[in-house]
């Protein structure tokens, strides 16, 4: 029954699932022992530490995913978590976009992550609008 409700609401929350999943997978990839930040596109992020950034992103993504899973079956339970994760996710994607701009200034190599992260930030803002509508309507 819980899975049925999640599947039913998945259609209207697919972009939110995507943002949460992307954050989690990206964070988990950075936690892999390989030195992802050695790539030129990540030059700006090296000072923050790959492990710290990885844990932060994976943590936000996982919390957002949990919020979606629980909120899919219990409408009124975790909408606030989804709302907070939406704000944090949107800001994170925007900051990553800016970070890729910083990397460009350091290395002179333009990464595809620049445009992608700004677009994801807009997508997260769009999700945020509908989370607010959902919270107001259903609690």
């Amino acid at each position, binding site marked *: 029954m819980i899975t049925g409700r999640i599947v039913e609401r998945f259609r209207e929350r697919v972009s939110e699932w995507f943002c949460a999943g992307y954050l989690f997978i990206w964070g988990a990839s950075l936690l892999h022992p390989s030195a992802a930040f050695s790539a030129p596109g990540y030059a700006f992020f090296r000072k923050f530490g790959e492990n710290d950034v990885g844990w932060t992103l994976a943590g936000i993504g996982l919390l957002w995913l949990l919020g979606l899973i629980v909120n899919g079956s219990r409408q009124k339970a975790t909408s606030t978590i989804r709302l907070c994760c939406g704000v944090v996710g949107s800001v994170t994607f*925007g*900051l990553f976009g*800016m*970070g890729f701009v*910083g990397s460009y200034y*350091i290395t002179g190599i333009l990464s595809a992550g620049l445009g992608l992260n700004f677009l994801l930030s807009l997508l997260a803002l769009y999700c945020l*609008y509908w989370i*607010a509508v959902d919270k*107001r309507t259903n609690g």
Partner: protein
Amino acid sequence: MDGSAGIPEWVMWVGAAIGSMLGALVIRLGWKSAGGEKSGPSDGKTFTLDAALVDSGAVRLLTAAIEAHTMEAVAHRSEAEKARQIGYRMVEAVNSCAGEIEELRREIGDLSREIARSK
């Protein structure tokens, strides 16, 4: 470009602040769009109630209709009270007539007995 610090840290902080404010603005927009306008605009003539728009003219018409209906109901009640009183008086009059007839019957009986005795 190698060797530079990229973009200054304060730019990131400003970006985070602008992003948070944008997020708050989007939440407010979503919140308001779902709940409708709860308070009336400054002109005081119209207000929205969920999805329905109610203007002051419609409210005035409704008030006048309710007032007319109330007046009509009061007039009906007064008429009904008068009819009830008339009916009560009629029943009283019929009862009185029945008593009178009963008395006449008794007197006729007495008279007929007296006539029979005198013969």
